């Protein structure tokens, strides 16, 4: 009996890549609202820029943002593991303990957000200590992700590190390869978080001003660090420049600037869309850079494609249903029917 071969991708590569980039963008958008938002409210709290009911109201949104970040993070990880298992698992194994500790860090952050949220609801005040604990958990997670995913793109370094130490206590020492990348991501989160804060705090001038400042300052800093990161690519840069990355970078930057402009005109929905598309552009740029870095050790085109159309169709139907149900539930929740109040009076 010939056993089935599992070395295949069960859909055309463009489809899997699109799904990966789309879901990763959604995850990053949610994560940036959460992480950036938490850092901003922490910063504003420490400097006493805005606090009290406004900050408390914002903090109450954070558990939902955490839930969105976690649930939207599953799909991109799945698609990443589908296409790059040899790279991702290998890097994760070499840093096994740090990688596994991410779960503990996120659980701590999640509970801290809930606790802060309940406390804010009860007292109208924000516990900066709990918020700092949550932010610390997310900061750790972001560092591990940057370290591990950068290591996944350096197969020679990976082999050398493993040959020396197999315990899973290896932290990626090539800080130059991911330090700026990590900073770029954190500043990007501050930018998106700033936008999020300004939207939630539309009716609170101090909060809106803080959000706006984070949006503008964060975007400038993100662009500057992004530029430095490009320069740090050394030998990879000329190859990267010859890919589709450059035109996409220009478009992504233009979209980010458009988001700023639209935000200043209070056209928030459109500004949000431009900002999301800009994030999508950055995610695409990361994808291209990964392929550049892995050249010589990994060829995307080498995958055998053996589509499983009926399971894919099931997924597609469920995905569409998911979107419909999410929108329907959100409408139900955020726009309660007028009879709610009267009905509630008659309810036990």
């Amino acid at each position, binding site marked *: 009996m010939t056993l089935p071969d599992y070395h295949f991708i069960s859909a055309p590569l463009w489809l899997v890549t699109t799904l990966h980039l789309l879901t990763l963008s959604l995850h990053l958008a949610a994560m940036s609202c959460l992480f950036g938002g938490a850092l901003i409210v922490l910063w504003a709290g420490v400097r006493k820029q805005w606090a009290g009911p406004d900050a408390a109201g914002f903090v109450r949104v954070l558990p939902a943002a955490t839930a969105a970040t976690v649930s939207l993070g599953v799909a991109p990880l799945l698609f990443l593991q589908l296409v790059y298992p040899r790279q991702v698992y290998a890097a994760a*194994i070499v840093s096994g303990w740090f990688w596994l500790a991410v*779960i503990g860090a996120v659980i701590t952050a999640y509970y801290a957000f809930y606790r802060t949220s309940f406390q804010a609801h009860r007292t109208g005040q924000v516990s900066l200590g709990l918020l700092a604990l949550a932010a610390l958990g997310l900061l750790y997670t972001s560092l591990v992700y940057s370290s591990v995913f950068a290591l996944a793109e350096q197969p020679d370094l990976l082999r050398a590190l493993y040959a020396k130490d197999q315990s899973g206590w290896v932290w990626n020492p090539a800080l130059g390869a991911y330090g700026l990348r990590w900073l770029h991501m954190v500043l990007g989160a501050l930018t998106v978080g700033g936008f999020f804060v300004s939207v939630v705090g539309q009716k609170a001038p101090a909060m809106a001003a803080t959000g706006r400042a984070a949006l503008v300052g964060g975007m400038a800093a993100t662009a500057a660090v992004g530029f430095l990161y490009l320069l740090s690519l050394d030998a990879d840069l000329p190859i990267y420049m010859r890919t589709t990355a450059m035109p996409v970078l220009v478009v992504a930057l233009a979209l980010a600037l458009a988001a700023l402009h639209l935000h200043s005109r209070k056209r928030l929905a459109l500004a949000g869309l431009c900002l999301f598309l800009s994030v999508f552009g950055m995610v695409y740029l990361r994808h291209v850079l990964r392929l550049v870095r892995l050249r010589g050790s990994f060829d995307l085109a080498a995958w055998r494609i053996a589509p499983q159309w009926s399971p894919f169709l099931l997924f597609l139907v*469920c995905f569409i249903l998911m979107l419909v149900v999410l929108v329907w539930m959100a409408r139900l929740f955020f726009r309660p029917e007028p009879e709610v109040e009267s009905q509630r009076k008659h309810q036990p």
Partner: protein
Amino acid sequence: MHYPFWDQPIGYGVLMAVIAVFHVFVSHFAIGGGLYLVVNERLARRAGDRERLAFLEQLSKFFAMVTLVAGALTGVGIWFVIGLLAPAATEALIHNYVWGWATEWTFFVVEIAAAMLYFYGWKRLTAKAHLTLGWIYFGAAWLSLVVINGILTFMLTPGRWLETGDFWQGFFNPTYWPSLVLRTGVCVMLAGLYALLVASRLEAGDFKARTVRHAAGWAVVGLAVTALAQAWYWKAIPVAVTARALETMPTPVRAIVLSLWLAAALGAGVVALVILAPRRFGTTAALGFMALGMAWFGAFEWSRESLRKPYILVGYMYGNGAEVAQTATYQRDGFLSQITYRTGDDGADLFRHACRSCHTLDGYKALKPALAGADRAYILALIQGAHLLRGNMPPFLGTAAEAEQIADHLYQRTDHRPLAAIYPLDGLALGRRAYDLRCGKCHAIGTASDKAKSLAGQSAEDLSGLLDMAASLGEGMPAYTGDAAERKALVAYLRSLGQGGKP
């Protein structure tokens, strides 16, 4: 073979079990708890029962805290840990079932969103809208089980997938339906147990008694469904797998027996306490039931995982990541040629990839004590005949030279003094230790391969002669290489076995 090996001191099985058992306990509650909340909310609203609605709101907070945070994140934790412990198997599963997992993710997203809105919606939404969200939550949560159950059961009973590679044939495999019913029963049972925990904190009175009885009803009904489904599940597993387990594998058999006792204790405990003292039902008893439930579920999952041995994907991939389809390649070119990440110490690399996913040297399923007093030739024989030992071990598929390298690696790390020098034993006690080391790895007393009866009437000389020709007695039997003192003690012990002596 294509991945580095995470050489951590905790056994792989233990690490996986800690995260997985906790996760399945919470995640099954996430499903059953959703059903419990929405069914009871409907009943309470119909009856205009304010007290019960307040209780349900309190339960939903506990529910959200447990399932949204710990449940969801330990689920992600399983993703993380299986990628670290069994990357090749995870890769194989993802390539075959990516659309199954992606579909499950869509239910997961709806489940999380609905749970949050349900929790925050008690005072914001109409009764109808709130109930609708509750039903959506339960539906999405149960559908995520419907999907993940297919992938989980595939690992033990891939069925015709092994011949066709067809997604659906692997998904709707022989144990799919019994497992789905079993897990649905577990969901209902856990909903009752968690509700009992929250109810235990209520003030003593009629309402508490009513709530405790009702929650206990859920626990008992769930347990009954589970018990019936467990029998169905066992029958659905191919006889070749269950028969071999009963014959050679103590772990799953012990786990199954333990799970049956725990289920009986749980059922009897819930019924007795609820009948006798529903008003005074306290948190300690509720926590005790939770612990029993977790122990029962843990025992069941442990038996399910152990039954797969020597495979991680039955008939397809061994527990150490070696692929059945690559057997000829391993035997021809060797294991080492397939190991991508090398450390420069070939013996250690071979040991890690061939043995270390189940055995540690000092900790879980430790080899140092198991091989204490053994000589190199004996260790080598064990490696080459690994598939014949009790416990359903995978065969060693590498070359003879590689088996020697592993034997060297282990011999250098074990105590090779005579048994009598390692352990302060003599006489029958020393003989029993020698038996455990030299014979018991296959012929464990009380198992199907117990040969004690065949020793009846044999003299010391006969038994000593038997040891001399051990290597020719059966496939894979190693030659006896113990020293004179050990031999004398072993012969005495074998004689005692032959005379009906109990070990």
